[in-house]
């Protein structure tokens, strides 16, 4: 069975600085997808970024980028130039290629301070 672990329950960062959120996972699959979701206080689940395991290149979406280390089963999220609107809970998630089901980590609550 797959598992996803986020070992940082809470983090804080100053506005305009960079922060990295950690995620590790365990799977015996060779091909799969990894995601970071953002959940602001409104409770919406917002997809931030996705990574296909067969791609070596790290995904990037504007200020958000990942460091995907397949052998180490690590998938960290870097947020550059942090903004107050980045304050939210962030979830790392795993999905098998045709499985459909998402397996989530425990979440990291990020506070961006002015």
């Amino acid at each position, binding site marked *: 069975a797959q598992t996803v672990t*986020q070992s940082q329950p809470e983090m804080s960062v100053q506005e305009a600085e960079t922060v990295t959120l950690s995620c590790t996972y365990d799977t015996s699959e060779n091909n799969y997808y990894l995601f970071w979701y953002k959940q602001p206080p409104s409770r919406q689940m917002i997809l931030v970024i996705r990574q296909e395991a067969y791609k070596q290149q790290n995904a990037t979406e504007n200020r958000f980028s990942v460091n995907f280390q397949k052998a180490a089963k690590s998938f960290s999220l870097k947020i550059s130039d942090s903004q107050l609107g980045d304050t939210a809970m962030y979830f790392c998630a795993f999905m098998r290629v045709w499985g459909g089901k998402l397996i989530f980590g425990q*979440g990291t609550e990020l506070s961006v301070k002015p």
Partner: protein
Amino acid sequence: DAGITQSPRYKITETGRQVTLMCHQTWSHSYMFWYRQDLGHGLRLIYYSAAADITDKGEVPDGYVVSRSKTENFPLTLESATRSQTSVYFCASSEPGDSNQPQHFGDGTRLSIL
């Protein structure tokens, strides 16, 4: 408007009562899911459905019942609510193989059981 709608958004009930959470999607997605969100656990899968009349257990199915008589609806029933079922419940839908938007989430139902 296309989307996924959960109702109610908030619900308070008493232990032992039956309560049903509703979920409706307008995309005709094959897959639908129910998750519960608890502090320290992230989102955990309760039940999912791959098509109408096909349902399967997730990680935490005990105490819950689902049905899917129509593709667009996937209600979740707590037959005899317990305090441990106090949680935020999310419904989601997806199409197989669509990793670009792996799941579309509803806005969640906050359920409190007294």
